[in-house]
């Protein structure tokens, strides 16, 4: 029923029905409905088609990049330093727009998304920034609860969730600590917890193990795998080959602005 409703309220669905002019209306309707349902079931969260990006008049940082992020998938995004991993993550997070090509996020053409709609879409994506971006005047607990707070939720409705999540990432004893006194690994886990707190459909992590030692990196990786097992699509940008070798997952390798995918 949800799929039927989703198809019926989709403008593209009706456009597809209208475009197939030579076929009887009932046939067109059935065909388009089947296509819409199929698209929903294949579950592509994000799709890039021939995407290119250049900064100003410089060379193209990304060239003809095409891929999709399926629901509940797990992938590494890798490549040498300066290959464009962070740029690609920024495109995934809608903090950049491509100079050419088509990006579809949650079935919406990125070029057509209104600025007022961006916050609502961003709420469906969790991001772990390379530099963490924690607010230094807030405790760990307050930083992790921030995404829910900006959505207007009462503290009493989420405090147990936040505390439970902090315990899960191993910071249950440090809820009152402020970010400036945390180690790199602790900050990383706080940033991950903040990205997870509102159950995002997709998690983007930029070099999440870049500031931690090997045992901690393995712990964080297990954390991401567990999250993925529960249904969240995960994209980890890293150049840590040792980390990638531990998981049999899809690898997206960026080199000279072009993307190669190894399933």
């Amino acid at each position: 029923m949800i799929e039927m409703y989703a198809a019926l309220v989709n403008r593209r669905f009706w456009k597809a029905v209208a475009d197939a002019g030579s076929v009887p209306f009932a046939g067109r309707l059935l065909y388009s409905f089947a296509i819409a349902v199929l698209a929903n079931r294949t579950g592509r969260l994000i799709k890039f088609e021939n995407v290119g990006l250049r900064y100003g008049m410089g060379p193209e940082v990304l060239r003809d990049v095409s891929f999709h992020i399926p629901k509940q998938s797990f992938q590494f995004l890798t490549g040498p330093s300066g290959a464009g991993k962070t740029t690609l993550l920024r495109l995934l997070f809608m903090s950049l727009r491509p100079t050419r090509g088509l990006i579809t996020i949650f079935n919406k053409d990125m070029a057509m998304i209104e600025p007022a709609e961006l916050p609502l879409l961003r709420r469906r994506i969790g991001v772990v920034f390379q530099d963490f971006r924690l607010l230094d005047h807030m405790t760990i607990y307050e930083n992790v609860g921030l995404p829910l707070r900006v959505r207007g939720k009462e503290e009493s409705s989420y405090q147990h969730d936040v505390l439970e999540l902090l315990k899960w990432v191993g910071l249950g004893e440090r809820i009152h600590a402020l970010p400036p006194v945390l180690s790199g690994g602790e900050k990383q886990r706080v940033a991950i917890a903040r990205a997870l707190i509102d159950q995002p459909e997709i998690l983007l992590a930029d070099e999440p193990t870049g500031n931690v030692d090997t045992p901690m990196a393995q712990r964080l990786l297990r954390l991401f795998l567990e999250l993925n097992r529960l249904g969240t699509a995960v994209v980890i940008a890293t150049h840590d080959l040792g980390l990638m070798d531990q998981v049999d997952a899809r690898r997206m390798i960026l080199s000279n602005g072009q993307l190669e995918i190894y399933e």
Partner: protein
Amino acid sequence: MPKGAGSRLPRSVGPWKKGTGEKSRVPGLRTLAPIVPNANAASQALILVIAIMSFLACLAVGAVSLVNKSAETWQSQIAREATIQIRPGDDFDMDAALEKARSLAAGFPGVRGARIIGRDETVALLEPWLGSGLGFDELPVPRLVVVTVDEAAPPEFSALRDTIIGSVPNASLDDHRAWVDRLVSMARTTTVIGVCILVLVLTALVLTVIFATRGAMSGSQHVIEVLHFVGARSGFIARQFQTRFLLSGIWGGLIGGGAATVVFLLVSWWAARNIITPEGEQASAFFGDFAIGAGAYAGVFAVIVLVGFLTALTTRITVLRTLRDIDDRRADPGRLD
């Protein structure tokens, strides 16, 4: 798993169940910190700058109010009297002429009363110039009749002048019009200068508040970005900053306005205590009782409200501009500025 971590994701992150539904607050948690950091060095400097500028603006308001009030008083005092002057002459009965002029003037419509300046009073008036022991009868000193006019319905001075000159020999009427015109012109000029200074001070206040607020906010850029990226709406972000800086603005305005009010009260108190001293007399001659009127206090209140409003508005515009800038950069990745 990290030390102390559970092996499975908590219910909060699991897609099948969200939240425990518990509403009680977990003990030991502090009250949530404000999203915009509390006073730092930049915001304390903002409060100080706003307080200083508000103080100066309030002083300017008070000064303009005082000058305006004093000018009105001078004008009113001089305009509510006219003088009949009777020059002495040969075989001239001065006392009879004075009495006739007084009774004519007193009966004229628009005149509240007329009073003859007596011999002793006239001597006292001349004493600063001619010294004491004046031989009053030996000098051809003109005598005066002071006519008090009704300010609300003043007499027709030309008719009064014709009546006095026609009935009393050697008499003339001075309605002080020349002085009143000069004083009105001077008072208006003084008030205009005061208002110009006030406008300059208020302009400086507005610009200072705007730039100080923007300066204090520049340290909060990362907060705006983080809020933006965790999915906060523009209105929500703007509201957080607006509330925070509105309080700073009002606090600075209250300090400045309060200090100016204290200055007003101190000056009034000093004037009241020193009214009998030469300095006090001098001040009171210019500024009356030196009391700052209700208008000045209303002005102080208006300055505080203006400062609060400006701070909040500047904050909102700056936040929205920052967010628009983030979106512009998103649309144009090559932008370097």
